[in-house]
């Protein structure tokens, strides 16, 4: 059952990812991205990472992609005016991407030899469990993350403000 679910999600995921790249209208790209992210959230669920699945949908689909959508609407970019690259470059891009994939895959083989920890803890991906880890061991990076956010916030405001000149 879950194997089938895995393959369905995977196919959908790859398909939507490809559509992100190849669809002509930016809005379509965004929508495909959101769809892709839902699939990925599905993968997370399959992997028993329930908390992350929810967060993924909230953050990515709910926040990030809405931001994208907002920007596109705001800038009124939805026309198919985007001039495309020359065919040569497009072919080169596909070749490059394919080459990278081939290399990655051929180099990654043999990973199945890594021992799988048999002690599967289905509760690991739950909020309670992750929360304990996050606020104990990973307290410091978490706090630092707040500085990162502060920086991003100040930066976004700084850039967004109208120049008074």
């Amino acid at each position, binding site marked *: 059952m879950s194997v089938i679910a895995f393959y369905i999600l995977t196919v959908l995921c790859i398909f939507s990812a490809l559509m992100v790249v190849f669809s002509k209208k930016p809005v379509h790209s965004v929508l495909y991205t959101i769809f892709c992210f839902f699939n990925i959230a599905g993968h997370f669920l399959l992997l028993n990472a329930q908390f992350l699945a929810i967060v993924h949908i909230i953050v990515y689909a709910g926040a990030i992609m809405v931001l994208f959508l907002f920007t596109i609407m705001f800038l009124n970019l939805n026309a198919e005016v985007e001039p495309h690259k020359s065919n040569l470059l497009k072919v*080169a891009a596909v070749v*490059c991407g394919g*080459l*990278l994939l081939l*290399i990655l895959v*051929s*180099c990654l083989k043999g990973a199945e030899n890594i021992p799988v920890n048999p002690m599967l803890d289905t509760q690991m991906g739950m909020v309670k469990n992750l929360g304990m880890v996050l606020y104990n061991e990973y307290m410091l990076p978490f706090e630092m993350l707040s500085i990162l956010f502060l920086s991003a916030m100040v930066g976004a405001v700084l850039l967004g403000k109208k120049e008074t000149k």
Partner: protein
Amino acid sequence: MDSLIVLLIPLLPLIGFIISGTLNKQANHTLINGLTCGSVFVSFLLSVILFYQLQSGSAPISYKLLNWIYVGALKLDLSFTVDALSSIMLLIITGIGFLIHVYSTGYMHDEPDYARFFSYLNLFVFFMLLLVMGNNFVVMFVGWEGVGLCSYLLIGFWFKNNAYNDAAKKAFVMNRIGDLGFLIGMFLILNKFGSLNYQTVFDLASHAATNDPTITVICICLFIGALGKSAQIPLYTWLPDAMAGPTPVSALIHAATMVTAGIYMIVRTNVLYTLSPDAGFLVAVMGVATALFAATIGLKQNDIKKVLAYSTVSQLGYMFAALGVGAYETGMFHVITHAFFKALLFLCAGSVIHAMSGEQDIRSMGGLRKKLPITHITFFIGTLAISGFPPFSGFFSKDEILAKVHEYNGGFMLFTILAITSVITAFYMFRLYWLTFWGNFRGNSHQASHLHESPKSITIPLILLAVFAASAGLIGLPHLFHAPHLLNNFLAPVIINAPTLEASASFEIALIVVSLIVLALVTYITYQIYVAKARIPVADADEKGISKWVANKYYIDELYNALITQPLQAVSTFANNYIEKYVIDGTVNSFRWLTNTGSLLIRQIQTGSIGLYIFGIVIGIICMFVFKFYLA
């Protein structure tokens, strides 16, 4: 506390240099005097303290300023050590240095660049102190180069005169030739012993075999360095020319201190020289040759400072002769006495020149003893001392050198030449003395009306130096008197393994008696020639035969000019016109062309397009993968 003193000694003159150098023309004389003379004087007092500590048996005192050069296995500290040898040098440098500073306040009084002069003097004292206080060869080398620099600056102090500038350049170049030897020697030491620290090197060397060829080469290289700095054959020609500088400079740098740096270096490395009798013999031969050679030139010089300059070269030859035979303490002994009487003679000469309104030719002097009584007396004492009249200081040191050389295995020939040189020395010194202070005044009326004794700031240093020049010999009485040889005892910890050379008492007595008789004879003869018969030296152009040869300093300068300078000029002209233009410029230009073109081509890849940039990155990654996974 002691180590702090060690640091302060070189630091004070440096501070003096910095302040007076920055103030330059804004400062009044009083401030400069207080600063520069004061700093050297305090250094002197501190040196005296250290000297007494060392004399009462204290171990050498060190101060480590910082870890200086730590590269690989080479570990060098910037640190100072004061042992018996450096302490004596300290006393000479700061003591005589202080007197000459005081003297200069009078001598340079009307000089517009007063502050610049004193800042250079202080800088010189600083570097000289660095030279003698360092505890490794590199610090010594820094000081060595530093004093060379100061010497250059001070010879060319009146830089508006081109001849003086040429003299400064000559001194610099000659010294550089020697420095090359020193540097090579240093590298060889590093290679052989793996360190440049005195203590380490000497400890290792004391286990080395005698006549080790590497050590001989090291010694010869170091000796070449000493030849340049201490003006020995064949690198001596710069020293007479260096008299272009102000007279206090000649006294301080070119008589009392800097030129003895070569001696100091060899005494410092006595362990190595003891291991290499061959190099020692070379040193002795060169020293004796220089002594005789320079003395004969001195016979025919008519410039008061040039006579003294050649006598300095000659006396330095004596010191090298002593070092060469392994009598290091004796060499130092002569350094000390020579510092006193030669500084005295130069300062007297300065006083005379001052009185004569800048005239330096002894043919235009004469009869000055009445007008310049103090200068006259002190100069006379200096003359007696350098000629070796007992009981003046020069007698003891020179006598000891002669005795030691005589005892040296196979040194009879050297001894004979040195003895003859000693007679010649007395001859030209008395010639100088009689011509300057006796007879009738031969200058023009303008000079005659200006004749006057110098001010106190000049005469007091003269008197002090005269006292020392007369009495300094007492620190090294011959065995004959059964008194302890103070200097030898003091230096004993520094001189390791040197052979002992002791002359018999009968020989010493004979030496004293003979030298007394000969000196009296010389005095009488010169008096007859230059005072009684008033034979004034003829003009240079009228000299004939050998005499002309000698008066022209054996044409050594011309020889160098013809043998070295002109071929070099020719080669460099050729190189400049052809090799430089076509070969070097051509090559360099083609490289430049290649670089520029390559640059123009390569910068094209920076297209400004993000797309292409990311392509670049991805291709870079793919290349890395291919390189590591498919090619390896």
